[in-house]
């Protein structure tokens, strides 16, 4: 355990050092992370105020709250591993990872967390600025905010494990772009990124409850905004735990099979 902590600490330092080399690109990434929810925020606020101040169960100011919180949750939970894996395999960086006596997922997790630590203060600042501009409104429910802490951690874990597994597809095909794209469309609609899920038709809501995407983004957002009952919160966390366990199993299976495939064709 101690040695693993040492590994994480070193990986933190490495990521910090490399990221700080590229401050401009850091800012550009953050702008991208702000712009997308900002567009949805503006669209939905406009729609809402033209149709009398609310759409479904969201008022104009509740939309503002939803998308500002969503921006933060998305930032905390997103990964870039799916973009990176193909490159790693093609460039042979994976061979070095395979020579090391430690599972490569550890350095990815540490890398991801440390980069978030760097950018999070900036994102919080942006959130405050947006709040001043759009006057969000949400119920303040202390127990829900407390419950949102494990929900957020689980959301990160779940999204990380699934996207890490999916990234391994690069072991079998060098054209991972199509798969990544399909995944992003699914997550855009079924996670509550483009709009709160309660605004979708019931069949889609039912599908979202079964699929993992909602538990990565929409669920912690709704929890933070105090829109869920205690029962719904518990069900959600249970779903997150179940999906995370499934994600862990998936990581193990796909990684083993992937390395086998990689080792068969040439590294």
């Amino acid at each position: 355990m101690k040695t693993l902590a040492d590994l994480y600490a070193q990986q933190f330092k490495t990521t910090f050092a490399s990221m700080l080399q590229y401050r401009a690109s850091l800012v550009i990434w953050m702008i991208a992370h702000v712009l997308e929810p900002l567009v949805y925020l503006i669209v939905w606020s406009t729609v809402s105020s033209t149709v009398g101040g609310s759409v479904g169960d969201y008022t104009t100011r509740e939309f503002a709250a939803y998308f500002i919180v969503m921006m933060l949750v998305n930032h905390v939970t997103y990964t870039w591993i799916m973009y990176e894996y193909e490159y790693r395999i093609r460039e042979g960086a994976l061979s070095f990872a395979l020579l090391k006596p430690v599972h490569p997922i550890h350095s990815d997790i540490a890398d991801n967390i440390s980069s978030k630590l760097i950018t999070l203060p900036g994102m919080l600042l942006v959130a405050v600025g947006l709040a001043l501009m759009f006057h969000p409104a949400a119920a303040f429910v202390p127990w829900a905010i407390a419950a949102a802490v494990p929900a957020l951690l689980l959301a990160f874990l779940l999204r990380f494990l699934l996207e890490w597994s999916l990234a391994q597809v690069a072991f079998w095909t060098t054209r991972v772009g199509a798969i990544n794209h399909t995944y992003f469309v699914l997550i855009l609609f079924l996670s509550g990124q483009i709009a709160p899920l309660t605004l979708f038709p019931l069949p889609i809501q039912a599908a979202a409850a079964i699929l993992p995407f909602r538990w990565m983004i929409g669920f912690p957002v709704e929890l933070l905004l105090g829109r869920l009952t205690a029962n719904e919160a518990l069900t959600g966390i249970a779903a997150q735990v179940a999906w995370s366990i499934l994600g862990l199993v998936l990581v193990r299976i796909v990684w083993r099979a992937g390395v086998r495939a990689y080792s068969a064709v040439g590294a």
Partner: protein
Amino acid sequence: MTSPAIHIHDLHKIYIVSEREAGAIAALQSLVHRRTEKIPAVDGISFDLAPGEIVGFLGPNGAGKTTTLKMLSGLLYPTAGEVTVLGYVPSKRDKAFLRQITLVMGQRNQLVWDIPPMDSFELNRAIYRIPTADYRHTLDELTELLDLRPLLRKPVRNLSLGERMKCEIAAALLHRPQVVFLDEPTIGLDVTMQRRIRAFIAEYNRRFGATVLLTSHYMADVEALCRRVVVIHHGKLLFDGDLSNLVQKFTAHKTIVVQLEDCSADLRSYGEVVSCVDGLFTLRVPRAETAHVTERLLADLPVIDLLVEDSPIEEVIERVFAQEGS
């Protein structure tokens, strides 16, 4: 007899490669029906390395050297045959095994590009769980041997190719591996840097008793470091033995260099005249006749100087592969 550090027996690796003709129609056909071809990259080779041995692993491009090194370091599953390194089966990638080996690839880097090598070294310390005292000690030694001190704090991207290679080698050896695989460690480096790295490899081997298997296209590397060489071609073993025996086995000729007054003399009766510059004749004579020809030259001609040489090792190797190819 101690057990070998590296043991390879009847090792095979067959790559299955999909192939198609050039052009759009062929591309469409390949969508429906993939034609695959089996390419034997390594075709039944066997050899052992004793602990502490440095062996040169030679062969032209595509001979199967890198494939073999990858099977030895656990990156590739063998198609058939037996491989053990320090008693481990590499493809199982046992952590205890990985902690005792290293693979340096001259054309690939493991150092993080944007940060100083020192930070990558620290990361490797954590990955290999090197105790701090050992780490300090090894790092000091490597810094001294490779003259790394001025490089440790510069971002890797600001280092020259040679400087980077030195740091790559240091990063790969921090955990003091017992078995070292070097794939073209001096590729692209200038002569001084090549010599430096060569000297370092010899010193590492001497100090730590590590087993080293080295591929290189620079025969100077091999001549300086390896008494024994293993030569493969088309995935098959051509030669395994002393470097000097390789020369004897594959060269039927020796070179005699004779210094005369000028180039006017006709030496064709002594051997094949390769060249003459300012009276300096280069003759190629059958190995068995060398002594006799030398005697005659000295007796018949006003010889100022005379030298008998083996053909340069590059030429020998070239001839080995040419014979095999024909």
